[in-house]
């Protein structure tokens, strides 16, 4: 391994650190793709031992900049200095030699191999000709793990690990390659709140040990919680370099988006109407055959947003799947009552319906995994705009022959109304940014004029501007008298949007509280704390098993 002088915590003593060499300095980086400037004279200065946030909306050029630093992309012009020395980074190899490591958003691990095998992969102990030294690999990993305080079982298979632990393996992998400068690309996007806290602890420890960390994100809370300084990019340009302690969410958001952003959702108090969705004593199994839902019961009224809070993996995903017909309920009953439109007052039993039928009776569904199930990425916006509704008379004659002109018009309408930024509705959805992809789904589901809207993680992986937009639309729909079921892992989102919050824990709804409930209270409920007496009665009534 290497020996390198570690300067003490950069920020602590000396505010005038301009003299000391930066761990990373990128000067006047320019990079243009045909037709678009990804980086336009971007500067980035990261001090040794600090946690530096690189923020910006999707497409602001963060990832390009980091890919340049990691040698994946060559800049058109600009200079890079590492520890004060001008360097040429021609590829990841050079970057690794300069002790730069990168943890990607999508993990680059081999699921059937063990932790140790994954970590040493490519630099296996034992030499190029000798056999792989399994025991030595284990030892090295254990040493590494102890040195940085990142406990991990070296013999566990990657596929058995949680996402949070997999990420830890990625970090260890970078450290094994002697990284002193660690780039993390949106590391929290896939993590639960708990895992996020753990990750932050790990990063703080690493920073204390002298590692320099560049943290790409667009979640402002994380910036404030974790980082020392912030560089903000907008449309490929620097728009700010801030000291975290001296700034706040509003300022960063304004810099990122280029205008004032309402971080709080403005909404009037709800005026709930009659019950739209009634769920009684719902049971279902998970993919692994475990009891994922154990007697769920609740109601969603017209004109209200019911938020479902909970640590991920407590049955929320299964609940949404059962409600939308994608998963079978093993017991229980679900009904939809129309409160508006031609069929007002009519009640449908949606238990056991297929997703298509559920959609037909007025349920819209924003799925939690937009790339996985909500969109066909290779297909055009037009075709994605009718996904799940392709047989509706509006889009198909005799449910068979597509009415292309109608579909094109529909897509153009959605794109216009929901501000999907695209030059053409014939582009594949893949070509859109994450936020715009999500807008396509939101548009499709909202525009169908549903009775009930199920929104699962509607803003996951979406930039601030789009989050604001989607939140506003959700409230609009509520005010228009729709019933909305909001499932989100973002507690902030749940609290700011919901009119009532149902907390799920281990397949049950432990309590239904008002959004005024404190974060501590919700946190306690989410981890299985006792519900209050009164609300337990309410719960019993709702499930109908009292």
């Amino acid at each position, binding site marked *: 391994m290497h020996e390198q002088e570690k300067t003490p915590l950069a920020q602590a003593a000396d505010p005038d650190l301009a003299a000391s060499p930066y761990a990373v300095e990128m000067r006047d980086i320019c990079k243009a793709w045909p037709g678009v400037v990804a980086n336009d004279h971007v500067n980035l200065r990261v001090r040794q031992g600090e946690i530096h946030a690189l923020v910006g909306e999707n497409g602001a050029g963060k990832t390009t900049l980091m890919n340049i630093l990691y040698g994946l992309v060559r800049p058109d012009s600009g200079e890079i200095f590492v520890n004060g020395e001008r360097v040429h980074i021609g590829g990841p190899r050079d970057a690794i030699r300069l002790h730069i490591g990168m943890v990607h958003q*999508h993990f*680059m691990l081999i699921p059937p191999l063990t932790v140790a095998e994954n970590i040493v992969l490519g630099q296996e102990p034992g030499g190029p000709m000798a056999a792989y030294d399994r025991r030595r690999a284990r030892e090295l990993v254990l040493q590494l793990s102890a040195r940085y305080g990142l406990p991990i079982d070296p013999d566990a298979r990657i596929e058995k690990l949680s996402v949070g632990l997999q990420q830890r393996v990625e970090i260890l992998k970078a450290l094994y390659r002697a990284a002193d400068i660690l780039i993390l690309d949106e590391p929290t996007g896939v993590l639960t709140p708990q895992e996020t806290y753990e990750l932050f602890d790990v990063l703080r420890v690493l920073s204390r040990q002298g590692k320099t960390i560049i943290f790409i994100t667009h979640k402002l809370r994380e910036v404030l919680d974790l980082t020392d300084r912030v560089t903000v990019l907008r449309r490929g340009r620097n728009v700010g370099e801030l000291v975290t302690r001296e700034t706040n969410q509003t300022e960063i958001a304004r810099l990122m988006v280029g205008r004032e952003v309402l971080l709080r959702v403005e909404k009037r108090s709800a005026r709930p109407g009659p019950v739209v969705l009634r769920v009684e004593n719902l049971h279902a199994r998970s993919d692994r055959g475990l009891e994922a839902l154990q007697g769920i019961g609740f109601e969603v009224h017209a004109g209200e947003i019911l938020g479902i809070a909970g640590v991920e993996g407590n049955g929320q995903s299964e609940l949404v799947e059962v409600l939308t017909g994608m998963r079978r309920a093993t017991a229980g009953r679900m009904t939809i009552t129309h409160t508006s439109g031609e069929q007002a007052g009519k009640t449908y039993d949606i238990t056991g319906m297929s997703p298509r039928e559920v959609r037909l009776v007025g349920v819209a569904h924003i799925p939690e995994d937009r790339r996985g199930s909500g969109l066909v990425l290779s297909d055009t916006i037009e075709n994605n705009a009718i*996904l799940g509704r392709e047989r509706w008379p509006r889009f198909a004659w005799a449910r068979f022959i597509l009415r292309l002109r109608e579909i094109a018009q529909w897509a153009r309408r959605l794109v216009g109304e929901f501000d999907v930024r695209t030059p053409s509705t014939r582009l594949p959805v893949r070509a859109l940014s994450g936020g715009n992809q999500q807008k396509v789904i939101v548009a499709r589901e909202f525009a169908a004029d549903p009775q009930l809207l199920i929104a699962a993680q509607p803003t996951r992986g979406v930039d601030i501007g789009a989050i604001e937009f989607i939140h506003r639309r959700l409230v609009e729909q509520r005010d228009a008298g729709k019933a909305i079921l909001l499932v989100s892992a973002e507690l902030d989102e749940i609290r700011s949007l919901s009119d009532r919050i149902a907390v799920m824990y281990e397949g049950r709804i432990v309590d239904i509280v008002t959004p005024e409930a404190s974060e501590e209270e919700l946190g306690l409920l989410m981890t299985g704390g006792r519900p209050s007496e009164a609300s337990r009665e309410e719960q019993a009534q709702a499930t109908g098993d009292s």
Partner: protein
Amino acid sequence: MALQTAQPRSPTPPALETRSTTLLLWLRRVGSGLGRPLLALALALIAGLIVIMITASGSLFDRFNAALLAYGYLFSGAFGNAANLSFSLVNVTPLIFTGLSVAIAYRARLFNIGAEGQFAAGAILAAFVGMKCSTWPGWLLTPLMIVAGSLAGALWGGIVGLLKAWRGAHEVVTTIMLNWIIFYVSDWLVSGPLQAPGQADQTPSMPPQTNLPKLSVLYNQTLGHFLPTISQPEQYVVDVGFLFALVALVAYWFLMSRTTFGYETRVVGENPRAAQYAGISVKRNVVLVMALAGLFAGLGGTLQLMGQYPYEVVGQVFRNDTTGFDAIGVALLGRMTAIGIFLGALLFGGMRQGGSLMQLKANVPGDLVYIIEALVLFSIAVRFLPVIRQALVKRFSAARQPTVVAALAGGVVDLDQAPANGAEAPTMNDQPLSESGRAALADDGSGQAQTPAQERQHQQNGEA
């Protein structure tokens, strides 16, 4: 934002600022659809040229001349005059049908290796019906045979779909097995129950009233009354089966791009989870698509039997016939589009025909045609399996610098941010083919495989 991010790092970026985006997108599609197959063909022809020059004798100039001459005969043998063209079209017809069979299955991401078997199943049942009802009038028996043959093919393909939907049996395995089953069944029938009396290993000829008319004869009988007639129509052997093939192409195009069935099939193929979300039954679609694939192939087999001399099934004919396998090449070359399949079938069918003239006149072995075919497919397949290229890239970079971390260098560009760095955007160009190659690499299809752009990037990096 999106205006910017939609920009791919590709050789021909659409000028998104202009309003003629749609036209540009279309041009791109056409360009990328034609570009690679044409390039593949050009490469194959050049390689073939070299092969001929090696085998020919004389000075370099003589050899070059010989090669050009051979190509000349190849072309004129295939399309040079009406008679040759009609022979070529006889080859083209079954290639279109089986090519459609492969293509429609591939739209649902099913690899139909069984087109030959379905082709055989169609021909066999049609022959069976034709023999058993040989006294029936032509107006009844002809459609009956066509329907029976199509259904037999549909059944043979449908079995594959059912096995896939119910048991998850991989279609490549089941189609190959079903191929052999039908080959042996046909051998047995031909040398047993359906054997022509006094003949070895062949059925009797189909009843003459079911023989499909030749196109030229048909023309003389209909339009020929008003327009100039064709003299000696019998020398133009192509039969009306070719018209059926054209109709099938149009039907395929319509089905795939204008109906909910085509739409849903595409969703099932591209993203089964989205299909589940949309309420599209993956199983039902898989069965339907395979049945349709079989129907196309079975129809091809039937029309071949009914349209071409000797109007009978000969022993071991199917297992020696490569139509159903050439069809895979036709479909790949045609990028699963109707027009592409037509052109691909024309190329393959024409080369088969032209090869014999080339052998005769230029004294170049007709097998050269197979070499060219193979090279065309190889050029396509190289693109088809980015895995190979990636493996090569890795091998080279690893050789240069043993310390490099191949795994880290693997898919490092953040694909979620694709538009920003353009890594994923080049796939806009890529029609269906790229996807499966990627799927082969990253099982979840999330596209962690390297795109060509990235590979180039890596190569450049490596050279630096």
